[in-house]
């Protein structure tokens, strides 16, 4: 019970860094250690760890499926596996990676852990609901995986009708039901974040003092709330059609398959920003910390998050240029898609400006952040090619698309995820990871990623269509190159799993603020006590109060 956190007056704040509390009863990891205390916890930090463990498992499953796909594509004639197996492998890869890894990754783990800390709250607004959404998530994901155990699905992660409702004779129904259930978990998480950010901020933590990470999650949560219900409807209709022939998509039942695509992409394009915005939030924390400089154009970056979240609802039609929608619609969607590039570019520009003339340190999180910026820019630029009507006719449904979305989604989300994981690892676990190994794997991942996916731009441009197990022999060289890159990439993913786990027992104990970073999460011990702060945190005078300040900051605050 206290309402301190007075803001005015305090000119310079010495970080009153509390000691590490590892092993003391008060830290959230050691407070209780029974299984029950983990599986019935309502502590947002423990729930975040539950998510972290589960999505890591799903990532491994998705990666194995990707390995199978790349293995098959080493030879042009499909000699390694049947078409059927190939279809199932890329479907499960896409389903698991998108629905069970990318979408929940940053929000459910870092968001859960950090939002209350960053705003100076004791927990999310609805702790029990938070635990519920983890169970909902697990139930849905396991439901889907049952379909794999039974024999697989072959519709692709997009479940296009009428293939998914009438023609596929694989285990579509459990996969659909699982994905539908997982959607509710997203909605509940988004709801919890929105309410928390609105109502639980510490006294003095005004909207324009919030870290960009929080802004990004606020925008993401709005997408969770406004887009997910629509895909739920679409999935429910698919289920009704497949199971009971109550249909609206299959022409045989009076339906319209393009309708499914409208409903699907109305969600799934915004979903891309569910994957990208949180990553941007992570990068916006890492970059200032490793440049020791105030984030350039803080307000613009904040507005750009909300801007992206809004525009993204109006561009779904760019997935349907060649599906017989009207030319006028295509033109409008094309133009709007170009508009999305603006807020994205604002962010890239602001990160670059922050790095410029900063006191740069190239530790692991920063290496990931720089890799992120590079891949994101290339992914974004190729998106403009795809949004151009005439070019789209040529590269639609080719490997160009596959390369594009991997640059955005893997480059944009997985790199941010790994960067954030290293950045906050000391806070999560109270231990430091091995810096040399961290740098090696960051470089390996960047290299492996480019060797894997860059050739796919060329393949697509040359006309290799996606989702086929065979291809003309002249494409073999580039495909082998891509598969070789995937091997490097796999090694790059394996290293962190090993040295991070190793650090849990043998890592050096982490201080409260190893990076000399700003933000309330660094004001508490590593790992934080169960109720987050032993004494109410002091809200900083300005956000990103780093030693090097841009001119603009001085102007704004006199």
């Amino acid at each position, binding site marked *: 019970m206290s*309402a301190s956190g007075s803001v005015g007056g305090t000119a310079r704040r010495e970080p009153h860094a509390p000691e590490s509390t590892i092993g003391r009863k008060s830290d959230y990891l050691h407070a209780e250690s029974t299984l029950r205390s983990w599986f019935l916890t309502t502590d947002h930090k423990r729930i975040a760890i539950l998510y972290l463990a589960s999505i890591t498992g799903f990532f491994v499953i998705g990666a194995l499926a990707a390995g199978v796909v790349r293995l098959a594509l080493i030879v042009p004639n499909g000699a390694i596996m049947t078409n059927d197996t190939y279809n199932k492998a890329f479907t499960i890869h896409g389903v698991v990676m998108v629905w069970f890894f990318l979408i929940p990754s940053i929000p459910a783990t870092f968001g859960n852990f950090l939002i209350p800390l960053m705003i100076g709250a004791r927990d999310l607004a609805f702790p029990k609901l938070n635990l519920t959404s983890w169970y909902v998530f697990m139930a849905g994901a396991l439901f889907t995986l049952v379909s794999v155990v039974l024999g697989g699905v072959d519709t692709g992660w997009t479940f296009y009708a009428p293939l998914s409702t009438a023609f596929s004779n694989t285990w579509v129904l459990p996969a659909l039901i699982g994905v539908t259930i997982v959607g509710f978990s997203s*909605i509940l998480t988004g709801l919890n974040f929105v309410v928390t950010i609105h109502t639980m901020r510490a006294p003095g933590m005004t909207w324009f003092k919030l870290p960009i990470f929080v802004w990004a999650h606020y925008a993401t949560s709005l997408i969770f709330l406004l887009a*997910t219900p629509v895909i739920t409807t679409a999935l429910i209709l698919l289920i009704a059609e497949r199971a009971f022939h109550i249909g609206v998509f299959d022409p045989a039942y009076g339906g319209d398959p393009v309708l499914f695509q409208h409903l699907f992409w109305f969600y799934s394009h915004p979903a891309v920003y569910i994957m990208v915005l949180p990553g941007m939030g992570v990068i916006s924390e890492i970059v200032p910390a490793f440049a020791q400089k105030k984030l350039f154009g803080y307000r613009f970056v904040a507005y750009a998050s909300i801007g992206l979240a809004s525009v993204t609802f109006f561009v779904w039609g760019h997935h349907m240029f060649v599906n017989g929608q009207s030319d006028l619609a295509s033109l409008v969607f094309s133009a709007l898609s170009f508009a999305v590039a603006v807020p994205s570019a604002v962010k890239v520009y602001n990160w670059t400006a922050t790095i410029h003339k900063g006191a740069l340190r190239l530790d692991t999180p920063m290496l990931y952040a720089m890799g992120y910026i590079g891949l994101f820019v290339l992914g974004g630029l190729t998106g403009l090619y795809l949004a151009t009507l005439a070019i789209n006719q040529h590269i639609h449904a080719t490997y160009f698309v596959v390369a594009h979305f991997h640059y955005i989604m893997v480059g944009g989300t997985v790199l941010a995820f790994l960067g954030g994981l290293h950045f906050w690892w000391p806070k999560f676990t109270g231990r430091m990871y091995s810096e040399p190994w961290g740098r090696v794997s960051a470089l390996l991942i960047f290299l492996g990623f480019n060797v894997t996916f860059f050739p796919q731009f060329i393949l697509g441009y040359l006309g290799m269509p996606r989702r086929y197990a065979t291809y003309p022999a002249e494409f073999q060289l580039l495909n082998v190159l891509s598969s070789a890159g995937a091997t490097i990439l796999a090694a790059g993913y394996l290293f962190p799993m090993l040295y991070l786990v190793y650090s849990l027992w043998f890592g050096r104990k982490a201080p409260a603020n190893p990076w000399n970073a700003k933000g309330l999460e660094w004001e508490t011990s590593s790992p934080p006590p169960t109720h987050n702060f032993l004494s109410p945190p002091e809200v900083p005078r300005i956000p990103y109060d780093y030693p090097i300040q841009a001119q603009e900051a001085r102007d704004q605050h006199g």
Partner: protein
Amino acid sequence: MSEPLADGVGVARAHHFESVAQQREAATLGIWAWLITELLLFAALFLVALITRIQHPEATVAAAKHLKFWIGATNTVVLICSSLTMSMAIEFSRMGWQRAMVRAMLATAALGGLFLVLKGYEYYADWAEHMMPFLSDRPFALAETPAARLFVNLYYVATLLHALHLFTGITLLLGMTWMAARAGFLARHQNWIEVYGLYWHFIDLVWILAFPILYVVNR
């Protein structure tokens, strides 16, 4: 809060909130956010139904004429009455009249049940009239125009989804009534009644939208 609360009525602060006011604000915002997502869930269906009507007026009107207008209309009245009883329950909870509140909640649940019974009867009548095109052993009563079939399919998905919400709503309401009947409930959880009330009004609202879109337009 707009209404002053009576003595012994209020909310116990949960440990992670700074104040009761904050806790109430969070609960209210939370339920509104949830209702928006629920509305969007139905909105997609209603939108498709409306577009179908605009594109194929004759076929959909022919199909809509087979719906049991009087059952739909009666059910609309039933749900409006249930919203009324729910509002009364909220008023009573604010005044601390626990018994009256419990009775009003039971009445609300009963009206919800009546709705489901009538709806069930309507489905039975549809079945008898061969208005269920997805049952392969019962040939569809209307000529197989795709639009008519599409409209009828949408009608089933939308009304079944609504019925599912109502069923869940009644179950929750009965569970809550059971807890609310115990001594001391109103001193700790009065806002549960308010929050739940919003959910009930929402179920009502969805039907008030569904009824004209499915039953009435162009009739």
